[in-house]
């Protein structure tokens, strides 16, 4: 076994060697695929992955001969490639989109509503039957605009170089255009999407007081409230169910875990019906007790409370299971000796149970917070038509929306009108906020400190 070259240089060397191996494999794989495709033109493109994989194996063997220490890295290679493909690449893509005007209207495709039939006149003129500017919706001038020219299945992009009253000249003529006519030639303006700098972020910040800030505040309150409530309830139930004097405790354990076992896609929508103000079972039951019908889900504060309570119902079994797991690791002798020393059950709980459960509990709480911070399912499915509105706020950010549901509605729902660029910008803000909160969390709780000791 050869030793790994030390320090930062060694790391760089290893990474460079790995990149070279994968890069070469990609080149060879693409060539191989291309060769096979000349024989079998119907080959689906995803087989490229197979040829690259085939090329990668001999590459790895060859590189290991030259750099024997690389074999350690091979264990990490599959995970790293997956991470790059499914985590890093989407993040980079989102970052890029956040600075563009990408949307349904600005899609980088020919706007078919501007499609106009034209005839080609050599050397580079497209002749219209009307004024091209209103037909292509260029505004005052079409010069510089990107258009797509197409006939049948052939299509190409071109840029407008000059204009006349019923004609446009192209900067460069696509090859198929001057060919003898075998069909009508059309031109349509491309609805360009382009870099717009920080305009998306400026828009978000200009709505900070009615959208970003209230949404962020509720997001934190919702996540923290959910974690605290579920943890408390889970802890209490866990301690109770752990007591061997309790009869039928296995039955209780199973029964209490049901809300966790059912798919939440269904249970959340069920809660939407249960909490309906007029017809929901919850208000009917409360009505029997003489309580006036509560506007769950329609008045801001009640809607927020309702959502946290539903999340409590959804989340406590997880905390209960975690508690039971942690309790099972505490040896019984500790309690026995406490009893001999004359400690009350409360003292035993505070002195033995809590400190020992806490170490197991901290990572669970952190995970739960991170999960609830982006708990899209609950927020979106319990009020699919949006929660109570914020006066003067955006239609995509209602009072029960959290950052992630705001981003989703902006990009993918009618209220947002397919504003993918703006949605990406919100997603980027979420990314920064989540990273920040996680760092603070890790720092306060010292979740990763053990390794450094």
């Amino acid at each position, binding site marked *: 076994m050869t030793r790994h070259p030390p320090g930062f240089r060694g790391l760089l060397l290893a990474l460079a060697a790995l990149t070279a191996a994968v890069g070469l494999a990609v080149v060879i794989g693409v060539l191989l695929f291309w060769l096979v495709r000349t024989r079998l033109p119907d080959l689906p493109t995803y087989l490229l992955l197979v040829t690259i994989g085939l090329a990668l194996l001999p590459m790895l063997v060859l590189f290991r001969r030259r750099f024997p220490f690389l074999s350690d890295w091979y264990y990490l290679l599959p995970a790293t490639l997956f991470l790059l493909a499914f985590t890093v690449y989407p993040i980079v893509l989102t970052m890029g989109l956040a600075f563009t005007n990408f949307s349904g209207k600005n899609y980088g495709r020919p706007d078919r*509503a501007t499609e106009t039939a034209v005839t080609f006149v050599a050397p580079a003129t497209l002749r219209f039957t009307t004024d091209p500017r209103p037909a292509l*919706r260029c505004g005052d001038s079409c010069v510089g605009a990107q258009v797509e020219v197409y006939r049948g299945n052939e299509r190409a992009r071109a840029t407008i170089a000059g204009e006349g009253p019923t004609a446009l000249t192209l900067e460069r003529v696509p090859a198929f255009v001057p060919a003898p006519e075998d069909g009508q030639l059309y031109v349509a303006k491309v*609805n360009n999407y382009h870099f717009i700098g920080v305009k998306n972020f400026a828009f978000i910040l200009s709505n900070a007081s009615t959208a970003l800030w209230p949404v962020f505040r509720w997001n934190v309150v919702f996540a923290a409230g959910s974690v605290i409530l579920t943890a408390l309830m889970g802890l209490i139930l866990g301690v109770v169910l752990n007591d061997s004097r309790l009869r039928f405790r296995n039955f209780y354990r199973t029964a209490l875990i049901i809300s966790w076992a059912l798919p939440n896609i269904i249970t959340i929508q069920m809660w939407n019906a249960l909490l309906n103000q*007029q017809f929901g079972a919850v208000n009917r039951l409360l009505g029997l007790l003489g309580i006036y019908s509560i*506007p769950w889900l329609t008045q801001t504060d009640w809607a927020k409370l309702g959502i946290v309570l539903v999340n409590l119902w959804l989340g406590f079994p997880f905390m209960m299971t975690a508690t039971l797991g942690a309790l099972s690791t505490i040896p019984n002798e500790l309690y026995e000796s406490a009893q001999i020393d004359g400690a009350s059950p409360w003292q035993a709980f505070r002195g033995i149970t809590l400190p020992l459960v806490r170490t197991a509990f901290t990572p669970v709480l952190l995970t739960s917070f991170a999960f609830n911070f982006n708990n899209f399912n609950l927020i979106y499915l319990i009020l699919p038509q949006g929660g109570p*509105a914020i006066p003067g706020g*955006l239609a995509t950010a209602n009072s029960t929306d959290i950052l992630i549901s705001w981003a989703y509605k902006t990009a993918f*729902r009618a*209220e947002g009108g397919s*504003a993918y660029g703006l949605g990406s910008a919100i997603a980027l803000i979420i990314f920064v906020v989540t990273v920040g909160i996680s760092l603070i969390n890790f720092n306060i709780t010292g979740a990763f400190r053990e390794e450094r000791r």
Partner: protein
Amino acid sequence: MRKVLFTLFFVALFGTVFAQGTVTVWTHFQGPELQWLQSAAQSFEKASGTTVNVVSVPFNDIKQKFILGAPQGKGPDLVVTLPQDQMGEMAVAGVLEPLDKYVTQNYLSGLEPVAVDAFTYGGKLFGMPMSAESVALIYNKALVPNPPKTWDAFLATAKKLTTGDTFGFLYPENDAYFNFGFFRMEGGYVFGKNADGSTNTSDLGLGGEAGVKALDFIKALRYTYGLVPDGVDYGVADGAFKDGALGMILNGPWALGDYKKANLDLGVEPFPTPPGASRQWGPFVGVQGVVVNAYSQDKVAAVNFAKFLVTPESQVSFNQAGGRIPVSKSAVEQLKGDPVVQGFSSAIALGTPMPNVPAIGKVWGPMADALKLAEAKQDSDTTQIASDLVSQIQKGIAGTQ
């Protein structure tokens, strides 16, 4: 051996006859309307040899999935059907095929003009209109024996039936589409018109005095007349009507299939305009049409199936399956004797077509928010809400361009 060869021969023969391509269709139809589409697909398969795949996609997901998927080759060849308010944005996004080159003047002149207008954007036809729809007052004759033709009759009946076990009148009070008629009767509109007849998206008519009056009226339905309690959404109102616990509902012809299945004796009238409104109540008129993917591999087959679906005979049988109103003149003529069709036709005649410009997408959300805010409290400030509504729509349209 001979038998095997024979079988193979026949399989090959049928294969060449029937394997004339496949057309994939996305649809939001449900229940009887979905069955209608599936049987139409089967008869088209028999007649043409083109296989038709019908895929159900939720109504609210179609636009997004289509815009994002179509250029990657992941879209369907056809969507059956889309309303015109989603069509404009999809046309601009470049995923819809202009259909002018596939249709004849004869076909167009056989359609109601409002249907052709609805699917014309930028001077081009982007869909084949199949049905029209608008909301109207649907009443259950078992509970409401006399047609509620005047406001007083409507109010008296509705109040009498609102007992606790039954309801007089319910509708989805937070839904912009259902409430537009109340804005219109107070003089409101969505977008103004330019001198050349095109839509002017900077002239917004949902705010101002008309908006305030409309919001006050909608509020009065809950707080003054005590008809529509908090928490009524589409599912609640629709369910109560199906159960026979609701006398009158504001709903559209898409619901008729289910109501017929529930064996309700129905009547349909335009919503009666209350005294003091500046003009008659009139709903949004939606036209639903079949649209073709601009990136379809087999546009000819797709267009042929679209044409097959929008013939007058198809429109009549589609109306009988569900209840939506045909847009072909001869189909309307054939259904003249149907009182339900007549009721909806008179509501549609009072209405105004939904805009088909992409900017309409930025109207629904702020409008729903304004409705929620106005209804939340009895003393809500409708003047402020109406002015916020306009500024929200403006902000949305300006966006970040």
